[in-house]
């Protein structure tokens, strides 16, 4: 790799102080540190050695945990396409459709997002940070395959600037950046991200009787007009679509990466085993969901309320949100006790929004954003409790 090192060394004077592109030094440094871990050594005082893990490696671990969701999602985009158009297709055909639809979204997300980041780094002369590595992958996974690319670009710019950079960059944001992108689209271009947008047809026409309704849509309908939700779901045009195990595996319409609870579970195992994601948050989201769902089961009222509580775990984006969004260490609660409260309330609010609020069929996104806002408050009380304990020991 001496060759590459030499190339970078040759370019260096251009970017250094007094060089022609002095202003673009963060860009130069950002790229060099992608190829080479830097040759920085510790100072004379303090820790003389450092842990071999840095932020880049931590972020890459999250991306690797998302890969099962991504691969499955690509296949499922194609799978949904072919069953909706009634064409027989091989696994490769399905995958190919997925690649055609998903890769451009990923490319736009990373391309536009990193460009925005780099612009800020040059303007503020700060080093390129790693946060976008994860955000760039999260954004495509929570979009429908049918999303127009220009909307992805717009949402990404909005999310990076308003969701993160105005607060000071990675580590300083209050809201989850990827969810900020999605919520932007939700309010700015609702027709492209809600309703029957979950299945990609291309130039094909759907089969007779096709309906793009998700199980959440059936739930909302049932709650609205008193029909029987489970019956509606079982009468879906594609029989067996909304069986529990089918939903668990994720062969249902939905955002690219979020349909498969099984893949999210694999991701969760990777995150927990590596200690990168908080198992406390993931578990408490599940507990919160089951608690609220169970409460509705007990009270009854309509057929959505009576839907078995564990169905909530496999429908919509709950599993994906719990594993990859709620655990975002920056926007989640930071204290241990806080994490339990934070996750539990995300579960509770998700079910509440799904079942009670007819305007938003899916609740996890808003629940996480809502709890992002409250996370500092939860932490505040946990920290106050620590201070009080400390104060009790005082002798003066």
């Amino acid at each position, binding site marked *: *790799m001496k060759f*590459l*090192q030499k190339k970078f060394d040759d370019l260096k004077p251009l970017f250094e102080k007094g060089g022609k592109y002095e202003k673009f030094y963060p860009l130069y440094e950002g790229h060099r*540190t992608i*190829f*080479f*871990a*830097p*040759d*920085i*050594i*510790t*100072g*004379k*005082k*303090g*820790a*003389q*050695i*450092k*842990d*071999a*893990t*840095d*932020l*880049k*490696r*931590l972020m*890459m*671990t999250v991306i*690797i945990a998302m890969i099962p969701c991504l691969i499955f999602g690509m296949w499922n985009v194609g799978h949904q396409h072919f069953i909706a158009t009634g064409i027989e297709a091989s696994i490769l055909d399905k995958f190919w459709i997925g690649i055609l639809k998903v890769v451009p979204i990923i490319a736009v997300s990373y391309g536009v997002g990193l460009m925005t980041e780099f612009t800020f780094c040059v303007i503020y002369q700060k*080093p390129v*940070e*790693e*946060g976008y590595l994860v955000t760039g992958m999260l954004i495509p996974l929570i979009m429908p395959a049918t999303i127009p690319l220009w909307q992805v670009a717009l949402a990404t710019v909005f999310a990076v600037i308003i969701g993160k950079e105005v607060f*000071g*960059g*990675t*580590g*300083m944001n209050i809201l989850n950046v990827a969810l900020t992108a999605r919520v932007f689209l939700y309010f700015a271009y609702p027709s492209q991200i809600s309703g029957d947008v979950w299945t990609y047809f291309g130039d094909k026409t759907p089969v007779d009787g096709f309906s793009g309704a998700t199980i959440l849509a059936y739930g909302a309908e049932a709650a609205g007009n008193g029909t029987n939700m489970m019956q509606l779901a079982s009468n879906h045009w594609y029989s067996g679509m909304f069986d529990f195990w089918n939903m668990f595996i994720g062969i249902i319409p939905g955002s690219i990466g979020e349909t498969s609870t099984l893949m999210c579970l694999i991701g969760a195992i990777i995150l927990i*085993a*590596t*200690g*990168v994601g*908080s198992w406390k948050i993931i578990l408490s989201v599940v507990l919160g969901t089951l608690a609220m769902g169970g409460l509705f089961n007990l009270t009854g009222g309509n057929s959505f309320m009576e839907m078995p509580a564990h169905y909530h775990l496999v429908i919509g984006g709950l599993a994906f949100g719990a594993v990859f969004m709620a655990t975002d*260490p*920056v926007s989640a609660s*930071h*204290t*241990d006790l806080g994490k339990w409260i934070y996750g539990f309330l995300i579960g509770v609010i998700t079910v509440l929004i799904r079942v009670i609020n007819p305007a938003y069929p899916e609740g996890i996104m808003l629940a996480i954003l809502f709890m992002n806002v409250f996370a500092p408050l939860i932490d505040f009380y946990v*920290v106050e409790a*620590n*201070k009080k*304990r*400390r*104060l009790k*020991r*005082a*002798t*003066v």
Partner: protein
Amino acid sequence: MSQTIKLKKGFDLNLAGKAENKIIEVPQPDTYALKPTDFAGLSRPKLLVKEGDNVKAGSPLFFERNEEDILYTSPVSGEIVEIKRGEKRKVLEVKILADKEIEFEKFKKYSSSDINGISKEDALDQLKKSGGWLNIIQRPYGIVANPADSPKSIFISTFDSSPLAPDYAYILQGHEQNFQAGIDILKKFTAGNVHLNINSKAEVSQLFSQMKNVEVNNITGPHPAGNVGVQIHHIDPIAKGDVVWTVNPIGVAVIGKLFTEGIYDTSRLVALTGSQMNERGYTKLFAGACLNKISEKAEGTDNRYISGNVLSGEGIGAEGYLGYYSNQITVIPEGKHEEFLGWIKPSTNKLSFHKAFGMLTFLNGKNKEFEVNTNTYGEERNFVISGAFEEVMPMDILPTYLFKAILAEDYDDMEALGIYEVIEEDVALCEFVDVSKNPIQEILREGIELIKEG
């Protein structure tokens, strides 16, 4: 009441280069230095000597202007050869060319039966004018203790859990009497207890378990279980207004000898450790020894010479001087090299607390010794809370919030979140595991300075 404390949180760094329990003969260094910078909070030293003066071990070299009767004395006898100054003429080192045979100032000598009868005032007087007092550190702040205080208790940790740390039981073999005398002297200064904390996992050295006049507490757990700050937190915590004193076991023996033999003898066995040391063991040195004779015994040319351990020590260079409170020299290679895709390449040889992707260190099993270098493995970033600080901090302290309070210069929060209970070594593991590579020990010291002034 003796206590047994079991700690779970923390992290043991298993490094290559442990010191064997044997003596290594190294020629006595020519020069020694007392460095005002070794004493936290000593800001305005007033020199009492000039170049060319002759001193004995125990002769005063300087004092702090607002605490004139605590003398900072010479560890050896010889001639003052240089007074090294830095910016704004700040004194950095007072260098002494040591005599072949060290001569000691004579202080009052007591028989072991007399030691209990010494009055507190006499003990204080002898400690202050001889330099023995410098071994007594106060919490909060981690500075040389204020003689006007009466501490609620005194803590001695008899084991060091930091990486490659010296074995005090080995170092203090044969110094039982001095050690007991040191404890008896210290006991005069507190109405509370002198706590002697031993590692209940290791074979307990009789030396410590037979001591009188102390409360013996058993501590187990990974590093930083041996840190006296952690022990205080669990045994007799410090709240606002409290003062606790701590003394290193070697310091206790120095204090003891000051009374049993009437001399200020800082010679002790210093552990020579680290993967770059040719031969690893212990060698006898006075405080502030020059490293030049020892660095000749190191392998390779590009090494980091550390006074102390790798977590909270100081890089002093091959010709530098051992810190006053250091009983250990660690030599490891410098890490100034780029590594192709080093931030993602899987590795089984890198030491990491985290188990992030590619960190396959766990495959080696528990006994693998890691060769470490001084590379930071990443650039400095904003704090990204990974939860790791909390996992290596065995105290009821919220480290992230404490550090943020310091950065925000929020005095009330610093106090409320426990700044009185910690010094640099207690947060050294946080600095090590931090993926954002922040200088946490430096941040903490800034906070301590703020709260001390404020």
